[in-house]
């Protein structure tokens, strides 16, 4: 088996079994806010990342951040800093940590934690206003976090 073929086979296996190596929200190891390891072991897809970042019901990052690189996305908010060039300011581990739980990097920040399931005051059942009926799920899945990070690392100055 050639080396290339082996890599393709490994990648295919990883894609088919995403849950095996997935790190749960409560098991994430942060080092000074950073997450060094992938949450899934499956490389993120930057195209899927853009979809997460610009879809209201998913990450909706553009609600608060301008992404000049996505000029077709209307009504980009300005609560947080623009994301253009963000990969020149933070490395991948920092970006993963900020997306998963930015409060461990920026104390008291407005930014929600997208991969966190406990420690909330009166959490609800998504946007229904009602109490949750089962355990909370994170706002984004582990793979969606990886997809967002995969796009963010392309935003170099």
């Amino acid at each position, binding site marked *: 088996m050639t080396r290339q073929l082996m890599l393709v086979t490994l990648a295919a296996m990883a894609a088919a079994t995403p849950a095996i190596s997935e790190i749960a929200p409560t098991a994430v190891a942060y080092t000074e806010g950073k997450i060094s390891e992938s949450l899934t072991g499956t490389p993120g897809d930057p195209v899927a990342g853009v979809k997460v970042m610009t879809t209201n019901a998913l990450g909706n990052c553009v*609600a*608060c951040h*301008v992404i000049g690189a996505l*000029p077709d996305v209307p009504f*980009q*908010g*300005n609560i947080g800093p623009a994301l253009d060039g963000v990969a020149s300011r933070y490395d991948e581990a920092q970006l993963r940590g900020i997306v998963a739980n930015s409060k461990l990097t920026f104390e008291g920040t407005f930014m929600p934690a997208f991969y966190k399931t406990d420690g909330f005051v009166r959490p*609800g059942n*998504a946007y229904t*206003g009602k109490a949750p009926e089962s355990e909370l799920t994170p706002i984004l899945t582990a793979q969606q976090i990886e997809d967002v990070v995969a796009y963010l690392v392309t935003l170099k100055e």
Partner: protein
Amino acid sequence: MQKQMIKTLAASAAFGLALTGMAMSTPVDDKLVIEGEEGTIELVTSTKAPEHLQEVMDTIYSGWHYREDDTRSMQMDDFDNPAMVFVDRGRDLWNAAIGKNGESCAGCHNGPESMKGLRAVTPRVDAKTGKLMTIENYVDACVTERMGLEAWGWTGDKMKDTLALISMQSRGEIVNVAIDGPAAPFWEKGKEVYYTRYGQLEMSCASCHEENQGLFIRSDHLSQGQINGFPTYRLKDAGILSAQQRFVGCVRDTRAETFKPNSDEFKALELYVASRGNGLSVEGVSVRH
């Protein structure tokens, strides 16, 4: 922070985003002069922050300053203000003999103008019972105790039409809710709710309406969250909204389990938020989007 803002604005301009025009207006410099049946009236929509707020802001602004031109102008002529339909409905209800024994609001209180001033000082603590009273609480007491009726839904049409009518009687009066004496514990409770970061998004009222007022969440221009304009005709809902109804929407949007209208928490919050607007005019019934 300012540098960041300039950068953000520059980025928006460079990429031709629709928000450039909106982002410049934070809040709009304009005067609210209303053409009404009894002539024109100018309202106080910005003024020095009340003393208890001066550590966090210098000036308070009505939400009117944060809305777009056409929404603002809709409130400048009673003929164009869609909320007036609800005030008229409230007047019909006021005069109707709806009580178990034919009682009406007018039977005891005469014309609705007898309610002048009430909106400016509520929520307030009732001297006899020691309870915190919103206008809805007063209406509810009349409906259930004096008129012998089933309670009206807290955010139902009858309650809100009556609220709109009563609020209109105080248009132009300056908001001046008491925060000391018997009101103090309620006010403290409301302040605690205001600054608590609720829900899975971990946002407090202050996160948006104090720390980020004037900025945009997507297309939403964040105001100071003042309630001097409530009840308001909300274009998005094509109907009248009470302050506590808006609180429900805000807390829900933080992915939280909300409190209910007329809960102790939201009553206290209404008092606290009202006090952040001490000094602004009651707008009677406003128009927002």
